[in-house]
């Protein structure tokens, strides 16, 4: 049975350059991970003077994560959290390997952004980190000024 996780994305950090909101990778052979949905609100930006667009991309293929771990929370309190590891990177991105861009979009910082994939259409990976299995949700833009945000990602882990 698949394990559903919610991953509260790290808030409080200040982002000033291209960054990964989330990096997720499976930690057990035979587990396929899929990003089902995520949402981001840039809480530091209010009023017209702060308005800007941030480009967002979802990548797969890096082999090395950023340093900051963030907790993944099984939505069912009785599920043991042992399928995935999750990380974030203020002003850093996942590296190594050969990344491919799976999804490109942009958000206006004055609007909350939500992306929900139809069933089975979310970015997926069946590989571990060494094999380039890291999925990264990335802010591609350098923001005009430092930003802070709140958000959550939803990840499904399924045993093949």
């Amino acid at each position, binding site marked *: 049975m698949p394990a*559903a996780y919610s991953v509260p994305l790290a808030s409080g950090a200040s982002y000033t350059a291209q960054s990964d909101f989330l990096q997720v990778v499976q930690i057990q052979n035979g587990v396929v991970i899929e990003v089902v949905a995520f949402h981001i*609100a840039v809480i530091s930006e*209010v009023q017209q003077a702060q308005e800007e667009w941030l480009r967002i991309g979802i990548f797969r293929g890096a082999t090395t994560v950023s340093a900051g771990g963030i*907790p993944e929370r099984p939505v069912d309190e*009785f599920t043991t959290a042992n399928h995935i590891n999750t990380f974030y990177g203020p002003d850093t991105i996942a590296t190594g390997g050969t990344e491919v861009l799976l999804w490109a979009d942009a958000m206006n910082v*004055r609007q909350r952004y939500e992306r*929900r994939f139809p069933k089975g259409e979310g970015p997926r990976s069946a590989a571990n980190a060494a094999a380039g299995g890291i999925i990264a949700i990335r802010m591609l833009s350098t923001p005009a000024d430092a930003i802070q945000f*709140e958000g959550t990602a*939803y990840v*499904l882990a399924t045993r093949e």
Partner: protein
Amino acid sequence: MARAYTIEFEAQSVTNANGDYDLFSIQPASNKPIEIVGLVLATTSELAEAQEEWLRIGVVRGHTSLTGGTSKTPRPADEFDAASGATCAALHSTIASSGTAVQLYSDAFQVRNGYQFWWPDGFGPRCSSAATSIVVRLIAAVTDDVTMSGTCSFREI
């Protein structure tokens, strides 16, 4: 089959002085775990650019005792469904702090837009009586007092 219920508050004052709030709390009955499936919030007092602000919200599971708040009777979406066994309340001006709580969900909304979110199917924050309670929390104080309405939709599974 899971039964759907809502709890709500309408045109209530959320004040700067009270700081953060537990907007909704649900304590599931024994053998009747719940799953939060949707959340709607609106700040009807905030108009024009000068009032613009982001309000941070979260869902936290695991507090072992709650204080204050206004008791709310869960209303079944289907009028023929049985009453929920959960104990619910809204607008705790003092947030819960007991127990080993985990934050399952983080978000924010612009007061000029309002907020509506339905969790992806199967991803709604869940809670059983073993974890005691689950709350929807306004994480930080509002900049100035607001008038807020809201609805939390949950299933008893």
